[in-house]
């Protein structure tokens, strides 16, 4: 481990767990649910007691892709893009075999013998998540880019020996399917009412739901955060954001008359262009950032 992580400080913090829970819930809303499930919700998130191991492998100038993206977005000028003096990119090896858990609730819809024949509330628990992968953290122009590259034992790495080479196989564009899955193992456990256990059709549906959730979880990481996609945290206006206590005036609503309308919020965007599969959108990590900055103010 290169990075000392104060896990005790983080994992038992209710606001952190709540923040992740809120984030996951907002992400879930964007997924279309199959006919056999309704009301899928994260009811609890627990970071667990074991920290990931983070080993620093390399430190470089950020990849050109990040500059191209910021240029395209109009966040920086061509002049800015040439000045890489204060920008930095870390390649880290992330090893996680912790006891993180996600609890979900859903309504299982039995479409047999007739559509919507029966609706059963179920509880699911995702745990035993295992990852051992290479991950990029690039900090440039007050934005932090996080992107998962590949599993450490991915055959594509053999020649490169855990090096980041922008022209190498990890960077050949959309080769997500050729890569070993970033999530090595994941366990899902379902609870349903005692009397339903004997019903074969119920169990079949449960099985389908479990499969759906595992796929959803893997896709979330692969499509949204694995190269050539990334998570982009914008801190360029985080300072002004932190000073804004976000008082909601009951008469005027959340928008204060003296709040400049063009303030850019720290936002999470997925890299997107015609070559990238994910659409650009502001996602609720914004809320997570904001939530935590408020908490630090209260402290």
């Amino acid at each position: 481990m290169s990075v000392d992580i104060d896990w005790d400080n983080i994992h038992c913090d209710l606001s952190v767990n709540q923040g992740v829970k809120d984030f996951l819930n907002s992400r879930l809303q964007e997924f279309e649910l199959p006919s056999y499930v309704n009301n899928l919700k994260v009811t609890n998130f627990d970071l667990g007691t074991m920290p990931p191991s983070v080993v620093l492998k390399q430190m470089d100038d950020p990849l050109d892709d990040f500059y191209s993206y910021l240029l395209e977005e109009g966040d920086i000028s061509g002049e800015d893009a040439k000045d890489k003096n204060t920008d930095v990119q870390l390649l880290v090896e992330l090893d996680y075999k912790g006891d993180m858990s996600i609890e979900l609730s859903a309504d299982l819809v039995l479409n047999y013998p007739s559509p919507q024949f029966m609706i059963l509330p179920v509880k699911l628990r995702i745990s035993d998540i295992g990852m051992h992968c290479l991950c990029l953290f690039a900090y440039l122009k007050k934005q932090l880019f996080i992107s998962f590259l590949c599993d450490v034992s991915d055959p594509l790495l053999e020649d490169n020996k855990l090096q980041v080479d922008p022209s190498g196989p990890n960077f050949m564009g959309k080769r997500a399917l050729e890569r070993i899955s970033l999530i090595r193992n994941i366990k899902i456990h379902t609870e349903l009412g005692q009397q339903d256990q004997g019903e074969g059709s119920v169990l079949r549906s449960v099985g389908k739901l479990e499969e759906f959730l595992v796929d959803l979880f893997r896709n979330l990481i692969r499509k949204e955060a694995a190269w050539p996609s990334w998570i982009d945290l914008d801190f360029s206006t985080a300072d002004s954001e932190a000073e804004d206590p976000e008082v909601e005036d009951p008469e005027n609503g959340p928008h204060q008359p003296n709040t400049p309308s063009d303030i850019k919020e720290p936002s999470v965007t997925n890299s997107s262009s015609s070559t990238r599969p994910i659409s650009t959108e502001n996602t609720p990590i914004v809320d997570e950032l904001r939530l935590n900055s408020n908490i630090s103010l209260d402290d």
Partner: protein
Amino acid sequence: GLEVDDKDNEKSRQINSILEKTYYDVETHSSESLDWFNVLIAQTINQFREEALQKNNIINSLNDFIERRSNELPQYLDQIKITEVDIGDDFPIFSNCIIQYSPNSNNKRLEAKIDIDLSDRLALGIETRLLLNYPKPFSAALPIKLTVSVVRFQACLTVSLTTDEQFVPTSKEANEGEMGNDKGYYLMFSFNPEYRMELEVKSLIGARSKLENIPKIASLIEYQISKWFVERCVEPRFQFVKLPGMWPRSKNTRKEKTDTDDSSSV
């Protein structure tokens, strides 16, 4: 317009008269060595080093200083601890001094140009941690050990004495500070942009598994140091230092201690 011209002409006339009466022709005068100056400067530096060593604890006093200023550190840096200070044991050598008209001054200002060469090891070693304050303060930390040393410095130095008001401060503080409208002489110096500064940066990063001497760290540090230097004393920026009054005064008068001195015997 005419008055300004008169004033300008007066200045050139004064400068030419000075050059004439000091037997210095800027066109033909050969460059001189500054051996005498090197000796005196070396003595001064030596004195400074002795004092630093006498206190025996230059590291402690630097650490105290950093502790006092710790609230000014950026949030992503933990407390900085100084682990090494090397004040060197060599001296700068000044040479090849000539007097010339300042470029672009239309022959109205004189300056001395001096080559400076320093081969030494001036080093500072620090230990700190890079902090991740998200999602909570001190969530994660990356330990960093750094040693930065200057091993060679070569430059061409421009020095002049002036009361000149043609120069403007580059920061607001200087305007409000003692510099204001203070009359008197200033020593003004600056380095030619074609200077050479050789730095050695050693780095060790990480808690248990460590990365050693990462080139990117070296270039980050070198960039910050040269930025600091260029923004202060590389042309077209100049350092202005107010000179103290030199007029002989009784409170500045001393004489040598002797055994037969009446005032010291009781």
